[in-house]
């Protein structure tokens, strides 16, 4: 069974809840799919036995020994990444220049260049890691800054997690997803059994929840809403519950604000490990029972 924990809005406590769910298990596969800002390894300090280079597309650059400055590539670039730029602050000479940030790596410029002066280089700084931690196996991706295709890296992390789950016959895989509703979120929830959307009682939380639900509606996974820190604004928390019941969205429960969640993180533990007998730990395990035993 694959359970994805996501949140439209960032900072709602998604990773802390994923960590808590993971530590409720005897053995688990934990896939940190927030490849932009993977954080769970900070809590679980996994021993990695596998590292893979992930090629996140390519970037174009110009070999000025060959370039004739014909500027044909500028006309073809759909990403506004090629311009005629002065070679120095005081120079009057302008040459064809590719802006690395805007380049999307489509290679069209290399095809149109009559002088074969454009070189493509792999973006090879992103990594996928997998290994073991105190509750089983952990897989995570780290996307190098500025690189895209994070959805693809998420797929690689999830494939690896699946292989591990099959090989070691582990029933539960927990996916900690990224914030937002874009490509990497879509990759994180596709084909999962359960989606838990973690939200918070703020008007932005509610607004983002609506957009997230609009997205998850298109998937067959059983989707649950969980309100974290609900007591920071009970009125909006009630509005979220109402929104769920009106739209027939399954409501997993609500958790109160508890400083021990942050203290646990500072101590490299989940709240389940840090304060097993606390009310919040009990509530989290009740929510877990509820969402995994729903028929």
């Amino acid at each position, binding site marked *: 069974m694959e359970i994805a924990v996501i*949140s*439209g*809005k*960032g*900072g*709602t406590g998604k*990773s802390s809840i994923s960590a808590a769910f993971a530590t409720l298990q005897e053995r688990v596969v934990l896939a940190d799919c927030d490849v*932009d*800002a993977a*954080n769970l390894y*900070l*809590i679980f300090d996994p021993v990695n036995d596998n590292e893979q280079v992930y090629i996140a*597309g*390519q970037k174009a650059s110009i070999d000025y020994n060959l370039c004739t400055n014909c500027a044909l590539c500028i006309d*073809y670039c*759909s*990403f506004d990444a090629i311009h005629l730029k002065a070679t120095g602050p005081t120079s009057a000479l302008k040459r064809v220049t590719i802006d690395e*940030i805007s380049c*999307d*790596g*489509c*290679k*069209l410029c290399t*095809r*149109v260049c009559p002088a074969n002066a454009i070189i493509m280089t792999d973006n090879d700084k992103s990594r996928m890691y997998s290994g073991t931690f105190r509750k089983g196996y952990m897989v995570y991706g780290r*996307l190098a*800054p*500025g*690189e*895209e295709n*994070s*959805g693809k890296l998420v797929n690689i992390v999830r494939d690896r997690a699946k292989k591990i789950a099959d090989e070691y016959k582990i029933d539960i895989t927990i996916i900690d997803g*990224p*914030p*937002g*509703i*874009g*490509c990497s979120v*879509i990759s994180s929830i596709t084909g999962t059994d359960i989606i838990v959307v973690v939200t*918070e*009682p*703020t*008007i*932005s*939380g509610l*607004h*983002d929840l609506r*957009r997230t639900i*609009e*997205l998850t509606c*298109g998937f067959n996974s059983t989707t649950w809403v969980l309100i974290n820190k609900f007591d*920071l*604004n009970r009125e*909006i928390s009630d509005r979220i519950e109402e929104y769920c019941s009106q739209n027939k969205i399954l409501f997993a429960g609500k958790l109160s604000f508890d*400083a021990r969640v*942050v203290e646990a*993180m*500072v101590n*490299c533990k989940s709240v389940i490990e840090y304060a097993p007998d606390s009310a919040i730990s009990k509530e989290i395990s009740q929510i877990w029972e509820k969402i995994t035993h729903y028929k």
Partner: protein
Amino acid sequence: MPATISQKIKIAVASGKGGTGKTLISTNLFHTLYQLDEALVLVDCDAEEPDDLLFYKDASAANFNEQFGGKEIYDVKQSVPVIDESNCIYCGRCREYCSYNAIFLLEGIKTIRVIEDLCHCCGACSYACQSDAITTKERSLGVISRFVTGTNSSIIEARGKVGVYSPVPVIKAAVKAAGDDGIIILDSPPGTSCPFIQTVAIADFVILVTEPTPFGLSDLIQSVETLKTMNKNYGVIINRAGMGDDKIYSYLTQQKIPLLLEIPFDREIASLYSKGELLVKHKPEWRAIFMEMYNTIYSIHRYGNSSNQR
């Protein structure tokens, strides 16, 4: 900084980790700067989850200039390829040219499809096709909208369509529509990947908002490393100060990164934010604090700051 001098600066408000308070900072800084009487634009670049307007409920919709259609809403479109199978000879050249695996072809049974969600609209397939079998159609990726909040101030919101993979073209359009003059605040998307880079690339100064927790620190380090490679001026705001631990402070000292502002963890601030209320309206003492921070940022931008130059 005397307000008589016309100020020109683009400030990006960013964070690696989501939910650290980017929107809190952007919306309150924007309101504080009304008093400068400069042309002022807040661009909500978090196209996946735009929230800034929730704090400006009385903002009224206003028209863009002609370049962006002259209306209140501008549809951001891209041209996706359409294959005319009556001309297609199933040669596979377009598939070979496509760097995104967006063309699905089974030569054996003469079937060809464009997978629109994978297409980046680069035009390579049209260039590749020698049989005149590829035309294009327009697809909407989202919209940008413009709102006026005061005599000189406006908000431009980038709102990506749900289910569209990349928000980048919508963000680019919003940033472009904000123009180049006056003070521009860019509320950036979280993370350090493409959408973040697109937003901070044009900024003169980047405010990194973080919180004093291990997650916050780890994401801050990643953002800082990225900004170093981009040669940007930047500083840090610690939000929810008082919770977590103090490792972040030693990191800032060690890296000589200016600490612009600390906002304590406070239930009242959290509660105001949760209701969509501005801190600077309800607790006016914050107005002076935000103004002082802006002055620091503006002077780093104009005159440099030796501690922040690499």
